[in-house]
């Protein structure tokens, strides 16, 4: 199944070995994740869709998971690779707990670990096809970072993956400010998710919003956003171009 338009490979460093085991393209994918810092911690939103090319195959995919005591991970891209990452993190958190020394890995540490994992896989030309968002709070310090499938990583007050970078970040740049209340943060995230729902072909109207604070993580039950399709600009799309669709 090849729905990706293939383009000229930029690197001619791949040898003639049997590359059948390396990732070439993703199969089941999740779309944007959007997250922002607010007064008490981090808010993150992602829809529950798992697309198989242009088919909306899975509609209850949880793309945000709590990691350890202090972190929340959201992922877009290949779902099976996200599940693999969760297995890596399970082991990481397990070994951290086994020290039983009162210390626990914070979001900064988990983000660093994920960055190293993604970069090392990229170095072996076998990437985990995900864009990850890692948020959390530890000892009152809020943290929000992101890492891409080739290892590009940074932290900021608001981050997004995929289409979210094109559609949500501009809204966040305009309307985000320090010490947003929980209600304002949710309203802002929903605004971003609504725009994505209107304009991202792979978005579905079934989303979860997750909150992480010093007290812990809550991932909301799935719900849908109210939409409005009666904008006059949408009313007669074929106007002036009869026969178009």
């Amino acid at each position, binding site marked *: 199944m090849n729905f990706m338009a293939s383009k*000229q490979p930029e690197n001619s460093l*791949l040898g003639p070995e049997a590359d059948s085991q390396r990732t070439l393209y993703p199969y089941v994918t999740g779309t944007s994740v959007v997250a922002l810092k607010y007064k008490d911690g981090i808010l993150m939103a992602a829809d529950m869709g798992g697309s198989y090319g242009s088919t909306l195959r899975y509609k209850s995919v949880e793309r945000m998971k709590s990691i350890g005591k202090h972190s929340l991970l959201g992922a877009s891209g290949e779902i099976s690779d996200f599940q693999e990452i969760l297995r890596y993190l399970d082991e990481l958190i397990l070994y951290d707990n086994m020290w039983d020394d009162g210390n626990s890995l914070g979001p900064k540490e988990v983000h660093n670990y994920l960055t190293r994992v993604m970069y090392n896989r990229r170095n072996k030309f076998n990437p985990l096809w995900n864009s990850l968002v890692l948020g959390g709070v530890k000892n009152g310090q809020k943290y929000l970072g992101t890492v891409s499938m*080739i290892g*590009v990583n*940074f932290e*900021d007050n608001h981050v997004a993956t995929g289409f979210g970078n*094109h559609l949500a970040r501009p809204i966040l740049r305009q309307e985000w400010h320090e010490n947003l209340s929980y209600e304002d943060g949710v309203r802002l995230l929903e605004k971003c998710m609504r725009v994505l729902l209107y304009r991202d072909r792979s978005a579905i109207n079934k989303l979860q919003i997750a909150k992480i604070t010093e007290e812990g993580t809550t991932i909301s039950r799935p719900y849908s956003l109210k939409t409005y399709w009666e904008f006059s600009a949408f009313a007669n799309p074929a106007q002036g171009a009869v026969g178009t669709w």
Partner: protein
Amino acid sequence: MPKQQANWSPYDNNGGSCVAVAGADYCVIAADTRMSTGYIILTRDYSKICKLADKCVMASSGFQADVKALQKHLAARHLIYQHQHSKQMSCPAMAQLLSNTLYYKRFFPYYSFNVLGGLDNEGKGCVFTYDAVGSYEKVGYSSQGSGSTLIMPFLDNQLKSPSPLLLPVQDAVTPLAEAEAVDLVKTVFASASERDIYTGDKLEIVVINADGIRREYMDLRKD
């Protein structure tokens, strides 16, 4: 069915410009704080400058993941050096280490364009400039990154470096005072931000002199 080719690239260019200027008893290293990919700005507040040793600072632009990995690698090597020699690495020593580290990955390069700046063992400013695979040169000033084509000619005009082919060997460090050099760097970035889309947001300036290291920021165009 012909063999499938990978349709992803292990590289990306996250943009940005870096500059370093050496003086008689100081060194100025500067870089913008914008991180982009394609036509998207990822973040406006990302530092491209890394302090490798007490008197040695590196600014790198290019592919951020490779830059980060390179910085980590050098920091780790510096720590080992300190354990083994009970002293900090000098700037010329770090310069050679950086070159060797880059060439080690000659056949899968770090996509990182670096300028190294600091004080040598006599306290005189020194700047080293690199390409992605480690060829380097000690110079009086340099720029790398997306805005370097705009910045370098201007620096050449203002700092007028003597030819390294002249005899007797002439000093490449600028006779400008520290404050004048910082001002020049600010001017240079303000100009680069006008025409290079990948340069802008904020300028981070690091100055190393006998008193230590100090950091300064200046706003740049956000468009």
